[in-house]
């Protein structure tokens, strides 16, 4: 079962890669087949990892092995909430899914709130308050950062009209944003080329070359 000395896995891998790349020429049935397969398998994959990696070790096994020990019976609460999320598809009791959703959303917005204020706003602001009177080149670069942060924040402040001084400062903010977007564009190109390189490298080194014994 090894055509041309390669495993079926490599062939499937290579052919699916080509199916997707064929879209570059134009939309075609091979691409649409691979695209649908990708969507379906990704969802199936979620079911697999959730079951094997979280539900089995953190819920099924503790409940099955020691129901009362270590207060494992309390796991019935998150289990019930998790199942209740699916009640949204049963019209008669769909309102019950809101209870589970409320706990789920409530918890994550609470955590997010601390993440954003304590983990982003405070440390990022603190690090922007830097010395600018020490002289030397570092003080100048510190000033660049301070002006950049301030002007970008002014640009994003839409409660006042961007005219006069505010308009001028926000214009500086746009320039800083443009530098950053330019940098992001450069980095994005790099990321995308890396992916292309990965696929081409597979096709050349794992598929074509071994086929010809090199």
């Amino acid at each position, binding site marked *: 079962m090894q055509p041309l000395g390669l495993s079926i896995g490599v062939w499937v891998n290579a052919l699916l890669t080509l199916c997707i790349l064929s879209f*570059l*020429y134009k939309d075609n049935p091979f691409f649409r087949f691979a695209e649908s397969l990708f969507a379906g398998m*990704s969802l199936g*994959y*979620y079911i697999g*990892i*959730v079951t*094997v*990696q*979280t539900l*089995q*070790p*953190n819920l099924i*096994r*503790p409940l099955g092995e020691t129901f009362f020990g270590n207060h494992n019976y309390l796991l019935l609460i998150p289990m019930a909430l998790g199942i209740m999320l699916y009640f949204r598809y049963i019209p008669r009791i769909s309102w019950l899914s809101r209870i589970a959703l409320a706990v789920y959303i409530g*918890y*994550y917005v609470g*955590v*997010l709130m*601390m*993440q*954003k204020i*304590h*983990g*982003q706003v405070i*440390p*990022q602001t*603190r*690090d922007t308050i830097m010395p600018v009177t020490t002289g030397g080149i570092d003080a100048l670069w510190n000033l660049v*950062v301070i002006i950049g942060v301030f002007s970008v924040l002014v640009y994003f402040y839409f409660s006042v009209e961007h005219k006069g001084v505010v308009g001028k400062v926000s214009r500086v903010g746009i320039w800083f944003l443009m530098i*950053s977007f330019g*940098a*992001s564009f450069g*980095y*994005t*190109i*790099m*990321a995308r*080329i*890396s*992916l*292309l*390189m*990965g696929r*081409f*490298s597979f096709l*050349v*080194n794992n598929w074509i070359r071994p086929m010809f014994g090199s």
Partner: protein
Amino acid sequence: MNLKKLLYIDRRIIYLVVAIGALIPIIRPIGLPVEPTDPVIGLFDKLESLSPGDAVIISYDYGPSSEPELNPMSSAILRHCFHREIKVLIMAVFPLGGVNMAIREVERITSEFEDLEYGVDYVNLGYKDGGQAAMKALAVSIRDVFPADVDGNDISAMPIINEIRNYDDVEVVISLATGIIGEWWADLVNAQFSVPVAVGCTAVSAPKYYAFLRSGQMIAVLGGLKGASEYEELLRRNFVWARKVYSDPAEMKLAATTGMDVQAIVHVIIIVFIIFGNIMYFATGKEKGR
């Protein structure tokens, strides 16, 4: 030749030029030089400052869509850790593929080390749902979050878990991340539990992470394939074993250093496209809306 025709050339010709530019260095690697930068040296120095027996967490927070950038990083960092006899806890919080990337990588790299003992020197804890919930819970007890390893084996009998109970026993968390998860390690775990965090990220995220690097919330940022190639270069410069590993032709097919050849060629092509496109644009009189 009509300049306007050149400006609105069939996109497939552009695709073809990019494809050829990417293929040539894969078929015939060039071996261009790489110079390490400070954001990458930060992680290298941190791992060098650790003593044998110290522990790190490596979180595989990426899927196949970032594999070519982050796999070489993972390989280089794992090798560095194992050579320095640093204990490694491997985990994943990225749902689409993180855990399976980790399985592949750990299997490949650990096979290079004869003396490594699973459950003593390293453990693959697998994937956990919940994102921030799991990250917060690790601060209390790793064992409670991961009662079993990736293969479902009970971890309570493993010596590594008895030594490393929570973040207090971890010297640095290294997140190999795509998307927002690298950020969570900084704004949640570093901010609330003071664990040093280093992030190896896909190049798309790198510009944002420089802000976290400046504020000290990340001790290092390895941005994309370039970051990975710089780490490989640091290993090569400092260790004989690394010079051996990164001269093996089979390994070099997977190494970031080789990938940088492709980057260099395609970057030049794209820069030429930009400059040429602009020359055409101005030469044809700045047509509106195109």
